[in-house]
Every structure is written in C-alpha cells, then in structure tokens.
C-alpha cells in the first residue's frame, strides 16, 4: 500500500518514517523517530530525488510504484550519499535498469566505496550544471561539507523548489503531516531541528555560511530537505536559525547550567546558583545533569543559550568523565562565542576548574568569567558570598 503526499501538482513526497530506530547514526537518541524524505517529479521525464534508509525501503518502493503507475523511472538525482538516503540506490537500479544516476564526481566515488554497482548509468555534474526534464529545469549547486564533501543541492528554476539534502532537516517522524505549517514548528519541532543541525552539521558553520550565501542569490519558494517537514512558507524563520547556528551566535540570552555530580553536592551548588540567578531577575535558566542527559541534547542547548555554567566534580584528578565528554564534543563541533562560568568541586585536590578553563580557552572566542567557585566537598553557608558574586559576574557579562 503506497502512502505519499503531493507537494506541487507534479512533485510527490515518496519517503517514509522510522519510529523503531533508537539511535540515529547509532549515536543520537531519536525518541520521536525520524523521516527519510525522497521526492518524485513527474515531468516529461520522471525524476527521483535521493532515496531512503534501508529500514523503510519496502514502503519506499511501493510509494514510487504507486506514483509512477505504468511510467518508467528515467533519472535519479543523488544529492547526498550518506546511507540513510542512499541505501536503496541499488534496489532502484535493479527495478529500473535504464535509469540515469545524476550526482557529483565524489558521490560517484562514494557509491563505489559503499559497493553499489551502477556501472555506466551515471551522469556526473558539477556546480552550475543544468538539466531539463521537460517543463522543469534544474541547476546543481555544490554544498561541500554540509555535512559531507560530495553533497550538492538541486534547485528547480521552474518552480523555485530547492532539494536541500541534509540542510534544513530535523529529527522527528512526520506523523502524516508534511508541511511546516501543518505542525507548530516553533513549539514542537525547533528543539529537534536544532539538535539535528548542531550535532550533525554543527562543526561546518563556515560551509553552511557559504551555502547560505549562494542561496541568498536565488529565489527559493520551497525547501525539500531529506528529513523533517517541507518548508513552503515562512522560510525566513528557518533561514535565520541556520544563519545564527552556523555563525555560532546564541539564539537567546540565558544561562544553561550543566553539572556533573556524584552524591548531589555539586548539584546543590548548581541549584544555589540557579536560584540566585532567578532571584536576581534572570529567569531564563535551564539545568542539566551531565550524567543522565544525552550529550546531543547538551550540545543543542549550548548552541541555544548565550551563557553556560559548568559545575564539575574532580574525578581521578581530572574532569568528571561525562563532563569531559561533553566538552570534547563541544570542541569537536566547533562551538564558539559563549560565555562560561566555572564551579569545581573536590574533596582533596580540586582540579576540574583549572582543567575546564584550559579546555575552554583552547576553543574559539570563548569568554571565561574570572569569578570561579571552588567547592570543598559541599557548599557551605559562608560560600554564599562567593556564589553571589559569581551570579553577579554572570549578570554583569549579560549587559
């Protein structure tokens, strides 16, 4: 039974949803599932834009068959070679042996590396190349390192549709909906969209900026990403988010407190600070236990807020391992331009403060506030003044 949606009169969504997968890329939890979007254009020629993950291949093949009817499939444009979109290439070729695969040179190289047998059915394209499918003309725009090197996006100059590959995607199954205005994106989707972007593409801000620059020169009417809703209005909202994220600018003035606690004492200090901040008028405060929050959520929130407080115990004379993992991930994802405060705890040789400061100072454009709190095992009444000045220094830096 095929299950598709019309996007325009001749363009169809033929993808599907996976709600069984626990970890996307076998690393990021996706409690709300994920959609793998593929698009089918019925012009004088029939054109498939990308495929889907192997897990939903059966549904996908039925969808294509359902839309094509008796027609054959002429072209398959592969914007992105990652297996969650490219896994079914061979399956398509087996069923439609005359199909021409359109992709970049590097994508073709990757197909061979992944073991897909396409032989000479390939048309290699590069930046600026155009193809006409009848009524629709498309132009290919390379999008290297968003977030793979072979990636390109395809722009339909006839109707302004941009097939944007992994750009503008989001975690989350679609639940029958397809368009951005069929969901309450700012309420229900932005957090997952941010978590997707920051963890998957976050490192490649400069490359995203380069793509956004190219995008600003064309008149985009609709964005068809490979995950999540299709955008057919209010594009500015999402483009603005992408611009902020890729420049590593925070979305909100607020304080994210991330604490690593063993017996609750460091957590108590973090609570004390949070309470002081709120009492002083900064109510945009969120707290996360680094041990039981998946790092993908921590990264996503860190991209969102302007200020971060790291509160960590000392463990084996080092930073608490989950905190260290979070910081290493932050560095790997190239996060910049945040303001940090540090609380360390230790019962005999507190080290985590100094070490966290060192790690942060090796990242780009990070401000580390001078006031620092060193807790000896547990915070005492007399530490209140120091914590208060720590809170003040955070508020001062927000001005």
């Amino acid at each position: 039974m095929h299950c598709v949606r019309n996007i325009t009169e001749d363009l169809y969504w033929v993808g599907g949803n996976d709600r069984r997968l626990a970890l996307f890329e076998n690393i990021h939890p996706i409690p709300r599932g994920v959609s793998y979007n593929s698009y089918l254009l019925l012009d004088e020629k029939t054109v498939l834009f990308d495929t889907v993950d192997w897990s939903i291949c059966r549904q996908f093949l039925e969808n294509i068959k359902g839309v094509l009817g008796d027609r054959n499939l002429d072209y398959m444009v592969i914007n992105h070679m990652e297996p969650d979109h490219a896994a079914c290439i061979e399956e398509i070729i087996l069923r439609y042996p005359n199909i021409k695969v359109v992709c970049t040179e590097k994508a073709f190289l990757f197909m061979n590396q992944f073991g897909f047998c396409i032989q000479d059915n390939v048309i290699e394209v590069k930046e600026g190349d155009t193809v006409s499918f009848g009524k629709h003309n498309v132009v290919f725009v390379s999008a290297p390192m968003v977030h793979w090197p072979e990636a390109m996006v395809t722009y339909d100059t006839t109707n302004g549709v941009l097939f944007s590959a992994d750009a503008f995607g989001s975690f989350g199954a679609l639940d029958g909906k397809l368009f951005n205005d069929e969901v309450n994106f700012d309420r229900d989707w932005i957090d997952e969209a941010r978590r997707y972007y920051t963890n998957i593409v976050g490192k490649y801000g400069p490359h995203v900026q380069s793509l956004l620059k190219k995008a600003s020169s064309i008149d985009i009417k609709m964005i068809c990403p490979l995950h999540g809703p299709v955008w057919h209005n209010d594009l500015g909202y999402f483009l603005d988010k992408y611009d902020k994220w890729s420049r590593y600018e925070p979305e909100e003035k607020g304080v994210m407190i991330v604490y690593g606690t063993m017996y609750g004492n460091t957590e108590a200090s973090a609570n004390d600070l949070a309470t002081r901040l709120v009492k002083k008028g900064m109510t945009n405060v969120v707290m996360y236990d680094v041990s039981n929050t998946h790092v993908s959520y921590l990264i996503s929130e860190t991209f969102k807020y302007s200020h971060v407080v790291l509160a960590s115990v000392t463990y084996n004379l080092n930073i608490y391992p989950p905190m260290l993992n979070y910081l290493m991930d932050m560095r790997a994802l190239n996060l910049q331009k945040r303001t940090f405060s540090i609380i360390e705890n230790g019962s005999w040789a507190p080290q985590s403060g100094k070490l966290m400061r060192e790690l942060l100072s090796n990242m780009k454009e990070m401000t580390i506030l001078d006031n620092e709190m060193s807790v000896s095992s547990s915070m005492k009444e007399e530490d209140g003044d120091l914590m208060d000045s720590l809170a003040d220094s955070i508020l001062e830096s927000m001005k």
Partner: protein
Amino acid sequence: MFFKTTEQHENLRKKIREFAEEEVKPIAFLLDQENKFPSEAIKKLAAMGMMGLPYPKKYGGAGLDIISYAIAIEELSRVDGGTGVILSAHTSLGGYPIAAYGTEEQKNKYLVPLAKGEKIGAFGLTEENAGSDAGGTETTAVLEGDYYILNGEKIFITNAGEADIYIIFAVTTPNIGIRGISAFIVEKGWKGFIFGKHYDKMGIRSSVTGELIFNDVKVPKENLLGKEGEGFKIAMSTLDGGRIGIAAQALGIAQGAYEHALEYSKERIQFGKPICQQQIVAFKLADMATKLRAARMLIYSAAELKENHEYYSMEAAMAKQYTSDVCLEIVNDALQIFGGSGYMKGMEVERAYRDAKICTIYEGTNEIQRLVISSNIIGKMPKNDSVDKISKKQPATGYRKKVIFKEGTSKERVNALVEALKEDGYDFTVGIPLDTPISKAERVVSVGLGIGEKENMKLIEDLAVQAGAAIGSSRPVAETLKYVPLNRYVGMSGQKFKGNLYVACGISGAAQHLKGIKDASTIVAININPNAKIFKNADYGIVGDLMEILPLLTAALDNGEAKKEAPPMKKMKRAVPKKVAPTWKYHVCNGCGYEYNPGVGDPEGEVNTGTLFEKLPEEWTCPACGEEKDMFIEV
C-alpha cells in the same frame, strides 16, 4: 681590480681622524670614567655632515658610499669605541630602516633630521625574553582606530634616552612567532614612553645603553614601517647593514690598540733593546697587522657589495664575526705588549680591551653570525617543534597587571600606588581588625623576611591599620622568626587569602607562598629587589626599602580619622588580560572540513607554526583528505 680605497676615502679618513684626535681623544678617559655621553662631539659630527654619510643628499645625507661610512666609524672607534657605536647605531639602526622601508612622508619627517644629525636614532628589538630569538618578542602593538597601542619593554638599547627617533619592533599578530612582528617609528616624549635604567657597562661607556618602557603609547597608524608582519624582515636586513658598522667599530678599536702597542714596543727597552726587536713581540705585531688587514678587506668588500646592491648578508656576517673575534685577540696582545702599564686605568689599551668585548655580542652574537654564514652555505636547518613553539608561561598567581611605579621620588611613587588602588575601588576610610582570620579578611598586609628586626613590625602594624587590613606573613616569618602566630602565615600549606587586597612587604614570592594568594583580586608588592619573583605576580609594585616605603604608604593612606567598620566583603574584579584576537584567517577544506590554523601550521606537512594560509606552498594539500589548496574556503 685594485684593493685600495680611493683618494676621497682617504681624505675623509684624514678629516675624521683629525676630529677624533682633537675632539674625542682628550676627553675619552673622562667619558669612560664618568659614563658620559659625548653630546658636544656628536653635535660637531653633525655639523661636519657625518651623521648621515650613506644617505642621499635629497634626504639630508652626504650621499657617500658605505665604505666612507665604515671608515668614519673605524676612525672614531680607533680613539673611542663608545663614540663609534653611537654613530653606528644612529646611522645603521636608526636611519636605515626608514631609508629602506619608509614611505616618502616618513623619510621626509624622520630620515631627513636623522641624516642631518639634528636628531639621533636608535633601534629597539632586544627584550628580556627575545635576544637572539626575536620570536620571543613580547612587546605588543594593538591597532585601535588610528593608533597602535604599544606596550612592553626593550632592554640593552644603544642611544636610549639620547635618541629622538626609535625603530621599535612589536607583535601585531600574536602566537605566530616572527611573522607576527611589525616595525614602528616612535618618538621620544610621547606619552607613556619612558626610559628605564641606564646600564653601568664594562666598556663603550661613553655610549649610553638603557631600557625603553612602553605603557599604552599611542603610535599613529602612519608610523607603521613597511607592512604589518614585515618587522622581522626589516630587523634582519637592518642588522645585516648594522654588522658592517660594528665590524668597523671592532676594526677601529683593534687598530687603535695595535698602533699604541707598536709605538710602545719601539720605546720600551728591555735586555738592552726595544722590545719590538724581540722576536716574540715582533711576531705578535706581525700577526696583529695581518689580522687587521684581513678584517679590513672583509669589511670593505661587504660594504662594496652593499653599495652595489648585491647580496651581502653572509659577507657582512663574516666581516662582523671575524673582525670582532680578532679584535679581542689584538687588544689582548696589545695589552700584553704594554705589560703592567697597560693594565692601568687611563691607558688606551686598557679601555680598548674592555670596549672590544661587546663587538662579539651585539648586533647579533658571533654565534648568530655563524648561524647566518652556515645557513648561507648549507641552507636553512630544519626547525624542530620545541624551537618554534612560543612558550606562554603564566605567573603562579594568574594574570596580573604588573604595573611597577618607577617614576619620581619614593613619595610620588607611593602616591601613584594609592591613587591606582582608589581608582580600582578601594575605600581606605574603612577597615577590619588586625586579627581577622586570613581566609575571611578582605585585605591583608603581609610581611616577609625583608622586614628584618622585630621592632620593624611596628611599621607593618601601622600600615595594616591605615590600609584597613589584617596582618599576615610568609612562612618563615611565622615559623622561624615567630613575629606572628603560626596560623597567620599565608601559602599553600598555610592560610589561603581569598579577599581583595594583598600587600606583600618584603616577600620575595616563593612558589608555595604565591599559591596561597592566587585568588587575591589585587596584589601589591613592595620589595628592595627589583628581580624578586613577587613583582611578576603583582598588580602593582614599588621597588624600594621597606623602612622608607612603608611609613610613606602608611601616611598616604591615613585620612586622619579612625577607620570605620568595613561592610561585608564584596569580592572585587581581578585584572583580566586584554584579549588579543588573532588577526589571521582560518581556512576550511571543502573535502573534509579540516581547518587550517596558522597558529598550529601543519607539522606533518612540514609547515611551521605561524605560516599564513596564503604563504602555504602551492603544492601543499589537505593533510586530512588530500584535496588541493584551492579547495579551501576562508572562514
């Protein structure tokens, strides 16, 4: 080719020799004894047109060749090495960078008065941590609007204080080593540009050598010499030429000593004949004359190469290294010929012996000369990481302002300190009990072994009262001297001070003590030893005798009223280092996202730290994925 100077050269030599014999020789001993700068003689040299010999007449120079310039220095040095170096530093180091790299405006404004001798020039490259290795330069110049803000200290600067125009080298792009250095023209008298101590030297005592201190000196943008990042190149090419001057100086010193020895050996009779007729002395003189001739040829030929715009870097290094090395041998032999008489003050050979030594050291040590020569022969030696890495040692107490009050009388310096503290927000109308626990005290006046006798503790108590502080001490003062209870010493093993103001009196700054005060908002150091470690760990410092400074400070803090009870402590902000963002651009690879960081370079690809992306060789490829250089985009 005929290895002989021209008639004009020899006429010039005669003229300068006459001047030196008449104007400098009579006062040379006095200048040496009194460490005195020959201002009058320099003025006369200017009037003779000797202060800009190799520069074009258009810019106020004499338009003569480099040999003429070398002869001038040689002849002055023949009589007094110090006077020789004044001319050399002025002409080669002060004038050359402007002549070679200056804009037309800069030449008209600065080279003309230098070449005419109306003003004196100097050159500031050497620093405490940047001698042979200019990569250690710590003086910074940060562009703010139309000005570069210059901060730092230069040491061992010839003509310091006497010169009006200084070529100063400072870091404009941090963390990339020598490629981040730029050159600036700085004028004496600009706000924040002061002179430190005048060194008491072994020789060349008629020349002045001192420290230059730059404290937020505003240098107009247009005083940048060349482009940003060209500083090292400018310095090196300047020193290439300067080496001819120093070689000529060494030649002159040796020539003078040799002539004196020759003359003396003809007069001094032992064993019934002049000692020059003793073969051992005769042969010495023969060797001296030979070395002099070889050295002179080396110098003049390097000068000719430079004059004819041919490559002369190696030859200048050879001339400087060889001449200064043989100069030491010649002055040694000359003094030996004089025997005990030569060892006496007032003897020219005695002065020459002392003057000579500096020539193997400055304008590039002779070890560096050999490095220049050998790399010309062998090629550049591969650099290893440890050499290229710029060490960034932090003081034990973290970043500190390190403002040392040096200007004025003790009273003025104390007042400047009190003003600075008040500016930082310290209120000296309030105070805390002297016995407040150290860990709870907002302020502590702490005493070290420098206090001496126990009766001097009265000074500390008086100061603590007026500073509104509790009393603390270093470990030995509590443990050994027992001037204060054991629970009042500050340090890693003792009490930790977490308050605002810490005044360390007579504390040298042992590591264990510093660990106890690293959280202090402000550290003030008072110590008689200017090199005490505490000064590198303090925000403010006064070098001076406690017996003098403490009463002055106590008086300056005294408002005539009893101190009011201090409100609960508010932790004050510490000084934060000015963040110097790197001015270089990062580039990322379109093939894999690898980021090229000039601060790191590409060790695997043998690209040194500090290499800008544009300077990478064309054949360089991404170390992560192998894409070509043109696949990179600027961040």
